[in-house]
Structure formats: structure tokens, C-alpha cells
């Protein structure tokens, strides 16, 4: 058992080697490359589907990274590059869906559910009988209390 402690300890503290955007054709300018990578993080890999194109090793993701770099190099804005992608693959290519009438349930559904839940909790609390304030003592109880207190004196 003791022999396992050190390996387990090392495994717990190992660091992941993130192989992100490892392309040979990175942009020469670090600022441009950083901007390109920010945009890549927002685009879905259409082959792996739940990865961004920066995380994916699929061929298509590599091609899309190349296009993003090319367009960043050409001085295009993020909005223009994302529009280029949605023109071809629809809103689905964006990992963060835009707020539109068709995505209203997605964006506001949780808020509506929270509202319904909050209303139910509020109604439950409001309807609960108020037992916090104690009822005043009756005459008989007061007399008894006086008697007890008087005896103690």
C-alpha cells in the first residue's frame, strides 16, 4: 500500500498538457495569433460537435482554424469572421447561441422556471399560519404566574 502513495500523489498533482491550436502555420504576430485563438474558442467543431475548433484535431477543424487565421491576418473583425462561418454552417457553428426569437426558450426558459419556482415558494410561505407571536396569557395564567413569583420572593 505504501508503495502506491507516491505514484498516487504524483498523479494527483500532474498537469494536463493542453495541446491547443498546435498548428505549424501560427501567425507570426503574437497579438494576432491571440485574437485568432479567441475567435476559434467561439466556433464549434462540426465533426466533434462539443469541442471548439481550437480543441479539436479533426481535419475540418484544422481547415477552419486556417481560415480564421487567414482572415485575422487580413484584418477582418471578429464579427465578420463569425458571420463568414454562420453564412455557411448556420448559428449552430457558434458555441454560444445568439439571442433570437427562435432561441428565446433557451435563453429565457431558466429565468421563467425560476420565476415560477419563486412564486410557488412565495405562496407557500405566505399561506403558512403565523405562529411566531405567542398568544397573550389568559387571566387565569397571569394569576398563577403572580402566585408562583410571589411564593419565590
Amino acid at each position, binding site marked *: 500500500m505504501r508503495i502506491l502513495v507516491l505514484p498516487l500523489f504524483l498523479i494527483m498533482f500532474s498537469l494536463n498538457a493542453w495541446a491547443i491550436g498546435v498548428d505549424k502555420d501560427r501567425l507570426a504576430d503574437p497579438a494576432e495569433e491571440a485574437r485568432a485563438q479567441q475567435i476559434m474558442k467561439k466556433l464549434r467543431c*462540426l*465533426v466533434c*460537435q462539443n469541442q471548439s475548433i481550437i480543441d479539436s484535431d479533426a*481535419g*475540418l477543424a484544422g*481547415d*477552419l482554424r486556417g*481560415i480564421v487565421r487567414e482572415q485575422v491576418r487580413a484584418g477582418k473583425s471578429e464579427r465578420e469572421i463569425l458571420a463568414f462561418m*454562420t*453564412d*455557411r*454552417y*448556420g448559428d*449552430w457553428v457558434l458555441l454560444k447561441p445568439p439571442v433570437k426569437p427562435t432561441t428565446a426558450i433557451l435563453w429565457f426558459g431558466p429565468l421563467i422556471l425560476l420565476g415560477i419556482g419563486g412564486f410557488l415558494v412565495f405562496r407557500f410561505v405566505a399561506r403558512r399560519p403565523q405562529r411566531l407571536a405567542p398568544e397573550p396569557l389568559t387571566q387565569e395564567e397571569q394569576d398563577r404566574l403572580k402566585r408562583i413569583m410571589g411564593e419565590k420572593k
Partner: protein
Amino acid sequence: MPIKRFLPLFIFAGIFVAFMIGLNLNPREVPSALIDRPAPEFSLPPLEGAGIGLSRADLADGDNIVVVNFFASWCGPCRVEHPALEQLGQLDGVRLHGIAYKDRPSHSLSFLKSLGNPYDKIGTDLKGRTAIDWGVTGTPETFILKDGVIRYQHIGPIHPTEMDARILPVIRQLQQERAS
């Protein structure tokens, strides 16, 4: 009061139905944003020789319905759908063109030699950039066009059942549109 007692059951039934529908949707089917839009501008070299193999000008083809199929010799499902493509290529009033996606021309050629060439014209998309312009996510993908406008997209191989249930009805409908 009895309705209130069954409320959890109704909620469960609602969620159950929503999940049954949601889980049966195919997440692989990413619809192209290009449906009902003109085909993108492109011009690709042929498999053999120089010049133009296939370009946008070939897609508006008079009275013909144009079918464009993205394929590759390295793609297994493309082999599977090959009989469907041969069937499409033989239909009256249908012109079938192919785009070889990220494939060496010599490999595409031997692929077509061994299975038969169903295409009228072929363009070679070596870098896959034309495919991206079409919103293609992988081979095989098939587009049906009329007057150079993309009207239908089929993702994945065309199985015989899909041929009868989707592809042929779409072609027939587009042909009728033209007649009227």
C-alpha cells in the same frame, strides 16, 4: 382535488414525450445555411488535365435538376452510396456532378475506375475550401439544385430507403415546379 393529485404524472408525461422526441433527433444532421440560396462561387480543376472541371456556371443547367455530390476515395460511406449515385445519374432531366473532397486525383480516378463513374463533370477540391463554402461537414454530402439555387441537402450516404423517401420525391417536386 383528483386533478391536483395527478399533476406530477402529467409533468412526468410531458418531460417523457419531450425527451423521446429530443433523443431521436440526429445531432449529425447540421443543416447547411445555404438552402434556398444560390450556390457559392467556385471553379475547380478536373481530375485529369488542366482547365476547369466544375464551376458554378455548370449548376444552372436549363431544364435539368442538378445534383452535386461531395465524395472521396478514402471515404467508406461513399462506397456504400455509389449504387444510389448511379441511379441518380441515369434519371431523365437530372445532371449529376461530383466534387472530390481532399483526395488525390489519382486515388479518385482509381476509385471511379473500380466502381464506375456516375458523374457528368467532376471538380477536385484538394484543400476542401469549396466544401467549406458549401457548408459541408464531411463526405458524403449531396445537394440538389434548380436554376443554380440549392434546394435540398442530404448529409451522409444515400441509403436505398432514403432514396425513395426523400431524394426522388424532392427531384420529382422540383421537376413539377418547372412544368407549372
